[in-house]
């Protein structure tokens, strides 16, 4: 129930399940969606933990559970030394001063009938705090800090662009000087030229106020830009967690490799010389997840053991946690975006695009020169047609 | 008590059904017509009519119609209810005015509802896809836009019919039709508790059954709500 020094958030074995109800004549619970199933991590003081995953990975549910916007089914959440999962809504009020949230959609997250001043000042009123100099002065200072014109205090959200609305959301979140801000896809609804403005703003605020971020996003390049450490989720489970440079340059989990190889790089020479690890099929149903490792149905490393035994998240190197029975240390050159890609001659090891015919197969690693295959961890792509629905 | 309800129910049934057919036909077709001419004068005209219809209370329309059509010009005899099986012609003569009175408000409402629903679906991505496939405009409108746009109207229509089946108090009173609404009024005036309870029970049952029917019907129209 305690946090170590410098730790702002500790999440232990977090589980958040949603009941699945049948909508027949007599509604009844027919199953559970295990949106988050046993996730543990910490966020340090003034640190950003990036939480990445695709839709259905449970990353957004983690974000909401951490702030008790959805009630977790089990596990512990400790914010700044206080366990909060057992608190009533009322008892959570003081906690909300310490932890705030920034939402994805700046169009729907702001009440269109409230003025900007009202929105940013709401935390003061709700918490009954009188900032020095009054709410209006404090709010206008916040507006100035996030790059809004303080004279727009009485305007309504629809008079602002997407980027400016996200600044409003950020000003509201930092109003109470929280220690932790949970950012749920804060830039994914914004245009690229605006994204950079918001990312820089978040970074500056972190330096200025010593904020900790739990930064939930699907864009791996954005997460790399802002995070100190990165955690990768898949189907409710943590797959891998490591310091930023480790996860992007030397990932160990096959899923992380697949994700990184799938992101197209904005450099035609490099990009056209890369090949991807293709994930077969679709995400399995979270109502009926695969036995053993949840990723095994789409994994190029999967073996017998993976369907039987759930791989625990273990620390393979200092600070580098991996949940996999058969971690992959190095991929053949040309696959993924590990740093060595930059050093190899572009195009040399390219296996090129998938053959025509539309059948997207698993990793086409067969076609790579044998020399490029790592010795220690053989890659054996397997023909698989398993596909959970 | 049962006998009373049994004799009153058919009157209400015919009244509600006739009005229902009238308002659905008029409301939906005028609504579609307005949507197809969105922003032009037919649209504004239809919306204007809708506003007027919406604003007129039914007892006012009823009294005006009785005054002119029956009393002043004598186009129709004074209503006196008779079963359609006994004398279809007299039945129609009696019911036409009540039907109109009862349908006016709902027609106005359905014109508006239909127009907005259809306009909304015109902006749907799947309507654009239908055009991108090279389908004729008529197919795009009827099969893709209208089918989706009219579906929510099923729900509203079913419920509105159900409420009417429980008795249209004002219309029945104005035209002295011996229906459930009129029966309810007289039972209240005479403090006939068992009868009040009986009518309430019948009305409630109709609404619940209608709810169920509407839900099932919706599942037929929209595959997304079908049971897995």
């Amino acid at each position, binding site marked *: 129930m305690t946090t170590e020094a410098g730790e702002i958030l500790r999440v232990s074995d977090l589980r958040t399940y949603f009941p699945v109800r049948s909508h027949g004549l007599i509604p009844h619970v027919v199953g559970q969606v295990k949106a988050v199933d046993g996730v543990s991590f910490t966020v340090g003081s003034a640190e950003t933990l990036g939480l990445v995953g695709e839709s259905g990975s449970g990353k957004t549910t983690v974000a909401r559970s951490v702030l008790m916007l959805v009630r977790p089914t089990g596990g512990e959440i400790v914010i700044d030394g206080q366990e909060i999962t057992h608190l009533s809504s009322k008892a959570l009020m003081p906690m909300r001063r310490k932890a705030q949230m920034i939402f994805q959609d700046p169009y729907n997250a702001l009440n269109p009938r409230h003025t900007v001043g009202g929105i940013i000042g709401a935390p003061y009123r709700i918490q009954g705090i009188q900032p020095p100099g009054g709410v209006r002065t404090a709010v206008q200072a916040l507006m100035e800090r996030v790059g809004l014109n303080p004279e727009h205090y009485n305007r309504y959200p629809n008079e602002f662009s997407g*980027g400016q609305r996200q600044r409003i959301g950020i000003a509201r979140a930092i109003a109470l000087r929280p220690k932790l801000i949970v950012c749920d896809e804060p830039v994914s609804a914004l245009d690229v030229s605006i994204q950079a*403005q918001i990312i820089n703003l978040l970074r500056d605020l972190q330096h200025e106020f010593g904020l900790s971020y739990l930064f939930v996003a699907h864009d*791996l390049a954005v997460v790399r*830009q802002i995070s100190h450490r990165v955690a990768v989720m898949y189907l409710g489970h943590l797959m891998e967690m490591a310091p930023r440079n480790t996860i992007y340059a030397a990932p160990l989990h096959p899923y992380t490799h697949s994700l990184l190889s799938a992101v197209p790089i904005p450099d035609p*020479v490099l990009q056209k010389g890369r090949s991807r690890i293709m994930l077969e099929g*679709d995400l399995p149903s979270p109502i009926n997840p695969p036995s053993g490792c949840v990723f095994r149905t789409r994994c190029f490393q999967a073996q017998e053991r993976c369907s039987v035994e759930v791989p625990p998240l273990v620390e393979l190197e200092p600070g580098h946690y991996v949940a996999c029975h058969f971690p992959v240390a190095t991929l053949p050159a040309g696959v993924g975006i590990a740093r060595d890609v930059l050093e190899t001659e572009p195009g040399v090891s390219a296996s090129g695009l998938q053959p025509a015919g539309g059948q997207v197969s698993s990793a086409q690693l067969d076609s790579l020169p044998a020399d490029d295959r790592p010795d220690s961890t053989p890659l054996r792509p397997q023909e698989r047609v398993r596909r959970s629905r | 008590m049962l006998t009373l309800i049994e004799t009153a129910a058919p009157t209400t049934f015919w009244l509600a059904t006739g009005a229902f057919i009238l308002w659905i036909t008029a409301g939906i077709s005028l609504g579609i017509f307005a949507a197809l001419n969105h922003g032009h004068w037919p649209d504004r005209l239809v919306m204007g009519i809708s506003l007027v219809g919406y604003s007129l209370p039914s007892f006012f329309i009823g009294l005006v119609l009785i005054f002119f059509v029956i009393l002043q010009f004598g186009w129709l005899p004074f209503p006196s209810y008779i079963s359609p099986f006994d004398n279809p012609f007299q039945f129609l003569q009696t019911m036409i005015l009540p039907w109109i009175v009862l349908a006016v408000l709902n027609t106005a409402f359905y014109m508006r509802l239909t127009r907005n629903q259809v306009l909304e679906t015109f902006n749907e991505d799947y309507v654009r896809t239908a055009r991108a496939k090279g389908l004729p405009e008529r197919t795009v409108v009827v099969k893709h836009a209208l089918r989706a746009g009219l579906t929510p109207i099923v729900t509203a229509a079913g419920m509105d019919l159900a409420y009417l089946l429980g008795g249209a108090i004002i219309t029945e009173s104005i035209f002295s039709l011996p229906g459930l609404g009129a029966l309810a009024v007289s039972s209240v005036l005479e403090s006939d508790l068992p009868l009040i309870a009986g009518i309430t029970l019948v009305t409630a049952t109709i609404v619940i059954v209608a709810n169920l029917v509407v839900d099932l019907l919706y599942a037929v129209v929209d*595959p997304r709500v079908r049971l897995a």
Partner: protein
Amino acid sequence: MTTSGGPTENPFLEIKDLAVAFPTEDGLVRAVEGVSLSIERGRTLAIVGESGSGKSVTAQAIMGLIDRKSAKMTGEIWLDGQELVGMPADELQALRGGKVAMIFQDPMSSLHPFYRVGSQITEAINAHRKMGAKAARAIALDMLRRVGIPAADRRIDDYPHQLSGGMRQRVMIAMALINAPELLIADEPTTALDVTVQAQILELIASLQGEFGITVIMITHDLGIVADVADEVAVMYGGRIVEVAPTGVLYAQPEMPYTLGLLSSIPRMDRELSERLEPIPGNPPSPISLPPGCVFQPRCTYSDRVAAGACLNVRPELLETSAGHLVRCHLPAEERRQISRDVLNVLAGGS
């Protein structure tokens, strides 16, 4: 790529001075102005831009999806010798889904929720050629298999909501390809999809393009996708094309300050991390009140280098700076190239 030969006399698709405007209550929305483009058969052109840049409206104009009653459209669109802007509605309708096909951003909302995917595809077949229900279904099934839908014989009777996002986009692609189009317009086809699914869909489009020899217009905001798929790139901003170049040239020697700004503002995984990103200051212009001079001028950090305030008052032309490389900018070519070299050097880790 099936053809990569020299320029033919008439490009497969040529757009000349296209303008599309929508009258609204707030004023005339000039969505697209003075757009000129050409693509050779079998190649992939990417149109890249942010929201409001006019890229989707351009695509819909080529597709004949602009409502002629409500919008004002001028200019010429020549597709394989046929002019589309002045084409009668019925001929345009025959072209849509036939010679030209389109896929959209959100495969969930782009498929009709009430009809089975099979019947939505056979409907597309029947719009262009008459055949029996059985034959049409067989063709649809074959196409579903070719786009990589597992158990296609069962999936063909599914409703869209029963499929995953990736599968729905495959259905959309099958539907688009069912009448063997020569031009496929893909409007942000992977934006609504996860990155691993995006990889599947991009590879699918590329392989089908090779198989059928289709010309592809890829509309996107993602410079990574452009680098992945495009032969040529047109960058749009404020309803205009501001730069056109072969893909390699655009990334290696971009000349328009907006293109440079885009390349500098995106976080990238293939470079050393820089502490801060270099965003483009300000916000995109409103298409109702565009700046009188260069539409990018209010956000451009180099416009003060141009004499006599030309950027403020004079709309620049889209001019060729080298073979196949067109730029809409008042800056002298030499100065643009110097700026470009400097900025790219810093980006490449020289900071």
